[in-house]
């Protein structure tokens, strides 16, 4: 071992890393927002007899595609040659990741809706609630509660998947590291910094997730007590 560690050489690039981190967070936030909305809608559609025909193939294909493949495919699809305008790489990555998240969300939402206990819905119907009122006031709160832990895990996963956006030159953390390395040839140090950034972002979220799960288990039925 006579590698000459030198983190000092990275110091001047702290602003670049900070900017990269911001891009990573922005990308993830947009994906969470769009992907969830899209996924929940798809999930509801997938519980309808007619909707199944359309949404099942979409969900299955999107789930089958590796996020990296989806990003590359969309990158070359959303170009001037194909659609007439060039979409900025950031938005291409956001779109591809949103579709990925939406597919997994839709599947969770569909199965959660199909597993809402019959009596829960029947009680609302017996009180004269319309289908719309049942969905908004009974079904939605029920599945939101049911899916919270699984969705949080998916969101944390998206934060990590966002690193793939570097392949189409989105200036997030990984891309930043690659440019810095090209500049000063300190790969090990740069990747350690990247690793640390992800650890700092993800580990607190994981703790929050565990807390959420514990709260979720304590404040709902399942553990019947005498």
């Amino acid at each position, binding site marked *: 071992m006579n590698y000459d560690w030198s983190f000092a050489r990275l110091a001047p690039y702290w602003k670049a890393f900070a900017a990269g981190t911001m891009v990573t967070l922005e990308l993830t936030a947009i994906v969470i927002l769009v992907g969830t909305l899209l996924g929940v809608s798809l999930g509801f559609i997938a519980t309808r007899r007619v909707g199944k025909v359309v949404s099942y193939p979409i969900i299955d294909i999107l789930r089958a595609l590796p996020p990296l493949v989806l990003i590359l495919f969309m990158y070359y699809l959303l170009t001037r040659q194909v659609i007439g305008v060039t979409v900025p790489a950031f938005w291409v990555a956001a779109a591809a990741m949103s579709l990925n998240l939406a597919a997994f969300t839709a599947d969770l939402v569909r199965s959660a809706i199909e597993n809402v206990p019959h*009596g829960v819905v029947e*009680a609302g119907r*017996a*009180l*004269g609630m319309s289908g719309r009122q049942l969905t908004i*006031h*009974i079904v939605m709160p*029920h599945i939101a509660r049911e899916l919270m832990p699984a969705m949080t895990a998916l969101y944390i996963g998206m934060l990590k998947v966002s690193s793939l956006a570097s392949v189409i030159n989105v200036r997030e953390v990984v891309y930043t590291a690659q440019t810095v390395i090209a500049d000063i040839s300190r790969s090990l140090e740069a990747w350690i910094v990247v690793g640390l950034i992800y650890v700092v972002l993800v580990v607190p979220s994981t703790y929050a997730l565990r807390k959420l799960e514990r709260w979720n288990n304590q404040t*709902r*039925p399942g553990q019947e007590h005498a």
Partner: protein
Amino acid sequence: MPDWDIEVFTANDIHKSFVGVSVLRGISFSLHQHEILGVIGPSGGGKTTLLKCLNGLELIDRGAIRYWNGFILGGDGSKSGNVAKRTKEDSLLTVRRQVGFVFQGYNLWEEKTVLQNLTLAPIVVLGQRRDVVTERAQDLCGRFGLGHKLNSGVWRLSGGQKQRVAIVRALMMEPKVLLLDEITSALDPVLTFDVMQIVRDLQATGLAMVLVTHHIEFASSVCDRIMFVSEGQAIQVDSPQNLRANPVSEDVRHFMEILSSAR
């Protein structure tokens, strides 16, 4: 005392079947103002389905139910055009709002608090103001011994408390009639007594009720009439005394004997 001249609803020859199995085969009867009608009979005889049809949870295939407010749920199945369908859907919801239903298994929204369980439907369905509804919930909970449980999660309650919440939830809609489906069958004797007491309290307010039960002593003491339902038909509708003294068939006599000796 029931007012025999005023009908809350009249069921006329109602039929209902599920995937080819006929559950109700032409039941006709009336419920009168302030009346408590007991429904007894063997399991699988169509008692729960009957109640669900009366509330509009299940749609009848044939026959008609005529309600006090002029609404009619009919099994003629006319589905001509969207307008007709719309009206049908609207009157269905109206019936459900005014015909309270209490389920055997409570069917409470376990993840909501007692107060949320009670106030959701009046606010959402009836469009009533939250403060008005909350006050009514506090009132009713006080009356039924739930005053201190308003903000508890329902999942924390005992079976007896849950059934009381379920009854109060139905009362919150200020129904014209209450349908009670074996509301004591999941409870131990002490809690059963507890819930029976509530039915007696409600009787004193003059609320009309249909009470499906296996507790013949209880039914005899609170009900004005008892209907014996078996294989989807009303075999006998009579006063509790007459049902015992003059059963119309061997089936009724036998069933009454078993229920009575089981006590």
